[in-house]
């Protein structure tokens, strides 16, 4: 169905793609893997007509074609689903599914559109939803499925899905996977870009790996292991994903007693020690991040008491929490984690502007010293501090989002989804940095929908289900399986 050969693309001095081949058959799901910056997104842009290759050929259905524009790509049956969904919130589900369909004619009553959209929605497992409601009233996962239903309605022959599950919880992911299978079953060639390697084995028959602008011959997923895939992507051996734990149990730092806040259905008590890392596992909406948000001053405390350093503390606002040296990184890095249009000097010193100023004037030497100090701690290239944060890879952005708090000398660092949108190589780095901070005496609270991550990283693990803390115990006493049970069906947990 699709054969791209010898694709090369240069942006100024940087060679984004040097030599890439990609072949996908009709009805096949081909995983496209690679670290951030390897060239995946450039390849995807070429395929969807947003960029033009400097060299190489593209065959669609056996004929050599040039894809000059997104419109032309669409006419060839190539559809691209970006990470940022293009579902239009104020339009109804049916309108979204049939968006751009010119064959329907002028008589577009909502009920007729709903009838026409129905079969596509059923095939992606959305048969139960009311197609007349606006799309914005549905969850991210459901909107993702609506997007796939649109691909079906357009009789898409080549579909490119860019990290469709990046922001979803595990049960939601299953639904998306089923929809992707349905898409392939219709004879569509699917290019599936993901960072979640587990999905690759379940979904894709083969995987194409890109590293530094070059592709490897596609490998059958049945003949490789996860570690082999990771090593191919990184080009080096992956010794261990998670850093070693070193006990982590100093004095009691934070004591939360019978606290309740929006998102929780039962009061929570816990104690965080100096140098300890506690991870909360739970699906999106399970309340795993509620305590973090409450401590950050973003959610009101409805009952209970908190003591910090042995003194009562009320996180009444974001200001109050920062003043108490509690740092919080939300899971929406693009929105409030970094300043994309500003350089790293400014990003890394944003929480401590007064600390780098004298009489209200910024001392550029202090600023440089502080930024460079953080950069060294977090393995950020010191020579790249003049770059804009938005131009960095997801992993480096996350290092900036975390690292900026170090200047504040926090006592507690709270992180939601520490590795969302971070590729597999940088993930290990983030884990190492977080661990290094706790080794230095900082306490860390994090929440994640990735059970492996919580189990592998945290000293103690909390599991959440429907606003309840199911269990809080040392990670060594838990398995990933028992945790997965706890966050999906706690009643079945032992």
């Amino acid at each position, binding site marked *: 169905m699709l054969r791209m050969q010898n694709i090369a693309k240069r942006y100024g001095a940087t060679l984004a793609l040097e030599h890439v081949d990609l072949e996908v058959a009709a009805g096949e799901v081909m995983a496209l893997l690679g670290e951030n910056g390897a060239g995946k997104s450039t390849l995807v842009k070429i395929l969807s007509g947003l960029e033009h290759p400097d060299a190489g050929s593209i065959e669609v259905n056996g004929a050599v074609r040039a894809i000059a524009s997104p419109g032309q790509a669409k006419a060839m049956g190539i559809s691209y689903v970006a990470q940022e969904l293009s579902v239009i919130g104020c339009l109804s589900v049916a309108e979204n599914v049939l968006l751009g369909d010119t064959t329907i004619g002028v008589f577009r009553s909502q009920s007729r559109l709903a009838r026409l959209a129905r079969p596509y929605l059923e095939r992606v497992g959305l048969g139960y939803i009311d197609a007349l409601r606006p799309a914005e009233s549905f969850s991210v996962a459901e909107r993702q499925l609506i997007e796939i239903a649109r691909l079906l309605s357009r009789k898409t022959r080549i579909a490119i899905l860019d990290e469709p599950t990046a922001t979803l919880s595990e049960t939601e992911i299953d639904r998306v996977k089923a929809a992707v299978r349905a898409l392939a079953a219709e004879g569509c060639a699917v290019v599936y870009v993901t960072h979640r390697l587990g999905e690759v084995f379940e979904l894709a028959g083969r995987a194409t790996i890109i590293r530094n602008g070059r592709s490897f011959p596609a490998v059958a997923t049945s003949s490789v292991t996860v570690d082999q895939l990771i090593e191919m992507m990184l080009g080096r051996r992956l010794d261990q994903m998670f850093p070693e734990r070193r006990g982590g149990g100093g004095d009691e730092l934070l004591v939360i007693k019978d606290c309740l806040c929006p998102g929780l259905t039962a009061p929570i008590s816990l104690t965080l020690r100096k140098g300890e890392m506690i991870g909360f596992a739970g699906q999106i909406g399970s309340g795993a991040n509620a305590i973090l948000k409450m401590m950050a001053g973003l959610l009101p405390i409805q009952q209970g008491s908190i003591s910090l350093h042995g003194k009562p503390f009320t996180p009444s606002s974001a200001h109050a929490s920062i003043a108490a040296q509690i740092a919080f990184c939300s899971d929406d890095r693009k929105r409030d984690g*970094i300043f994309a249009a500003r*350089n790293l000097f*400014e990003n890394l010193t*944003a929480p401590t*502007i007064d600390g780098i100023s004298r009489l209200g004037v910024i001392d550029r030497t202090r600023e440089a*010293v502080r930024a460079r100090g953080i950069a060294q701690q977090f393995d950020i290239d010191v020579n790249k*501090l*003049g770059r804009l944060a938005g131009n960095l890879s997801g992993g480096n952005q996350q290092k900036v989002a975390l690292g900026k708090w170090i200047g504040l000398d926090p006592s507690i660092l709270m992180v939601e989804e520490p590795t969302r949108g971070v590729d597999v190589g940088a993930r290990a780095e983030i884990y190492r940095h977080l661990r290094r901070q706790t080794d230095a005496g900082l306490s860390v609270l994090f929440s994640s929908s990735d059970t492996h991550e919580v189990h592998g990283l945290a000293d103690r693990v909390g599991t959440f289900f429907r606003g309840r803390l199911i269990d809080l115990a040392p990670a060594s006493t838990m398995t990933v399986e028992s945790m997965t049970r706890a966050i999906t069906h706690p009643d079945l947990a032992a």
Partner: protein
Amino acid sequence: MIPPSLSVSLRQHLSRDAGQWPAFIVMIGVLALFIIAGAATPSFLTFGNALVIVRAASMTGIVAVGMSVITLSGNLFALSAASLGAFLAVIFAIVTASLGLAAGVVAVIVVAIAAGGLQGVAVVITGNPIIATLAFGAAFRGLASILSSNGVLRINGAAAIWIGTGRPLGVPTQSWAFLILTVFAWFLIRRTSLGRRVILTGASRDAAHASGIGVDGVICTALVIMSLMVAVVALFTVCQFSEARANLFSGYDFDYIAAVLVGGIALRGGEGSPLQAALGAILISLLENLMLLNGFSAGLRIAIVGLVVVAATGTFHVLGRKHR
């Protein structure tokens, strides 16, 4: 902590200002226009005419520099600047006429700070700088009209006349003020902690809030700065002509905004510097001077300035996208 090697620190100092490129483009535009025009128009390429151009840009430029602080903070524009100017001019004239120049200056500063603060609160509460300042603009114009009883308010005094018409070192006071305030605003934005807060708030209001920056205070401060710049212009204008009226500066809001846009300051905020607004004002003034001397008809002049604004905004937008 870490002894920075000289080469690294130099490179960083250069690269951290890499975001300044729109200013260079405008600067090149100014120079190019100067040279082209100089070749074609006699009496254009003279020091005297350069002074004339800067003088013509001064009053618009000072407000544009203040306006740029609002744009940089991510709040687009204040559409109340012209009306606020008339209101402050009327206040200045009334107080100066009865209590003297010093009292007039103090009154104008106090009222400007209050007006800026109130508008800041309104922008924060409504979340919409355009609507909030538009409403305030109507109120300011109305108040100016009531306070002046729609008449002409006169002031007298040698000091006021010197402020309005003096030429220290052969350069008009207004041009000095333009120069000094541009440098001041540039320093404020690029080098002070307040300026850093303004820029970060503009770059991402959410991220600024999450980093513990008091974004509401930053927005109020930006409007106060703009109001103070407007106060300076009101003061100079009243002093120059020894009078104030309620309909002063009518229709000037477009000029202020045009200068900010032609200067290439990103509308989404967080990128650029007040220097660009000043250069934008000079570029427009240059263009107008050129057209004036070449006898372009009024319609053509307005259309060309409009097209330049559209072209500049479009170019910066496209370049900005390529840049990231």
